[in-house]
């Protein structure tokens, strides 16, 4: 009897305390939940939406569902890593496609992680998936940089924690930073210049790549980055090859 009375008292106290809390501090009180929802199609708007989408979808699918190549790896869009399979794939293929079209030797390629907009699944890679990966109408360009601009590019990479690169290896764990360009001998002269393959978006200072803004030379390769990806996928498929991912220590911090 006494015990239950005690309990009631204690609960009343709790209520009063809660009440005081609400009355005295009318700011905010939070509760959060997270719900996962799988709806059935009982809501009319859902149906209207589907009807609106259908003609667009049908039209688009004809074009976008074409399978370009098979991938035997997942290429995940990752943040916070100096090197990713996805970044390596796109930088490598850009070098390969551009080098065939460009009259002269390209030293290396640099793109940006932010511009690769989705992950590629293992299995069939459709034209639509490539559009999702590279939705922008960016073109490949070759930018000629001075030694000074090149050095700024390297320290930019260091500061942002890496970007997709090809044809070059950078080791930040040593002092000074070790930079190896695959297709040329180590040239330390101050007059040397570097031909960098990138997109016009980045060459125009996008993603804060200001070192590209006053280049010695700026040349268009003549292909959009997306079309380069599509072309590479189609060629690989024609040669009976699949997309394979690689991580090989292109950028090393420690």
């Amino acid at each position: 009897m006494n015990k239950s009375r005690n309990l009631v008292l204690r609960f009343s106290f709790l209520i009063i305390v809660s009440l005081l809390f609400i009355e005295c501090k009318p700011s905010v009180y939070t509760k959060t939940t997270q719900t996962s929802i799988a709806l059935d199609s009982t809501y009319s708007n859902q149906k209207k939406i589907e009807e609106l989408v259908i003609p667009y979808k049908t039209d688009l699918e004809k074009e976008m569902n074409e399978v370009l190549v098979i991938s035997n790896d997942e290429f995940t869009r990752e943040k916070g890593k100096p090197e990713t399979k996805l970044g390596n794939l796109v930088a490598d293929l850009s070098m390969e496609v551009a080098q065939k079209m460009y009259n002269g030797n390209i030293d290396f390629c640099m793109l940006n992680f932010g511009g690769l907009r989705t992950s590629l699944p293992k299995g069939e890679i459709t034209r639509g998936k490539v559009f999702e990966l590279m939705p922008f109408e960016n073109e490949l360009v070759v930018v000629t940089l001075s030694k000074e601009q090149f050095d700024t590019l390297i320290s930019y990479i260091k500061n942002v924690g890496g970007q997709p690169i090809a044809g070059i290896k950078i080791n930040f764990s040593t002092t000074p930073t070790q930079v190896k360009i695959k297709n040329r001998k180590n040239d330390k002269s101050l007059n040397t210049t570097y031909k960098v393959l990138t997109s016009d978006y980045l060459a125009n200072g996008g993603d804060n790549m200001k070192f590209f803004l006053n280049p010695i030379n700026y040349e268009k390769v003549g292909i959009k980055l997306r079309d380069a990806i599509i072309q590479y996928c189609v060629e690989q498929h024609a040669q009976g090859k699949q997309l394979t991912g690689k991580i090989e220590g292109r950028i090393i911090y420690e």
Partner: protein
Amino acid sequence: MSNRRTFIKQSFLGSVSLLGAAALNPLSAAIFKRNHTKITILHTNDVHSHIEPFPANDPKYPNLGGVARRAGLIDKIRTEEKNVLLLDAGDIFQGTPYFNKYGGELEFKLMSLMKYDAATIGNHDFDNGIDGFYKMLPHANFPFVNANYDFSNTILKNKIQPYKIFLKEGIKIGVFGVGVELEGLVDKKLYKETIYLNPIVKANETANHLKNKEKCHFIICLSHLGYEYKTNKVSDLVLAKENEYIDLIIGGHTHTFLDKPTTVRNKKNKITLINQVGWAGINLGRIDFFINSKNEAYYFSSEAIKINSKKKS
């Protein structure tokens, strides 16, 4: 009545479950005699033309998202709640071939069908140039708000308002927008003569106007500044600290998945909430505010509702 019940349940959390119903009822009647109005804010950001769900084989988001399901969910909430505002924090465009092929027409038509109340402009909404955005405007029957882009020397002159005011059961809600710095992010040939103005200054100016001139009870900022940066670049967290009158910042740009809103003490030592729901329409954000008889928000609850389009088996 049903509102009231939800409120009691949610605000007392654990302690309620310990109490017998008999003890609760008379008390609750006394406490909650005064009226409160519930405002339900639903929001998205960075949907990036994701009209269909991610496919089942997507490495990160299999079966998630999709406009049809989102529309169904919004429909359902509208049948349950009286005062719903549906808002978007920008980057509606770019991300799937729907945008490459149709230029954003379908995105705007779908948002109109879902009855979006307002949206702000993200950097990718300039991807087909300011002209590309302008061309799509007739497909949107909801307004775009932005207070820190000066469009006066562009085709968007007089097409974008700094804010819009909504009235819900006597509660005046001011909604305005701010956008990210375009230089270094968007090609100048796309945004043309758009002038970026300091978002903190413009946000404070606009919120002050909404509070003191328009007498809004509640102020929402649709922001495409981004949640947080390692550098000193202006972000939602900075704006939250540096403002006086914003109750809620609905953010975007950084694709940040927040499970619950971030609570920040602003310059007036009051609470400014920040929420952001990732990207691609994977989550729908929901925040319910309870406004007391003095027209102050005194309680909120929030949900990040994951849109799972997997068919029920």
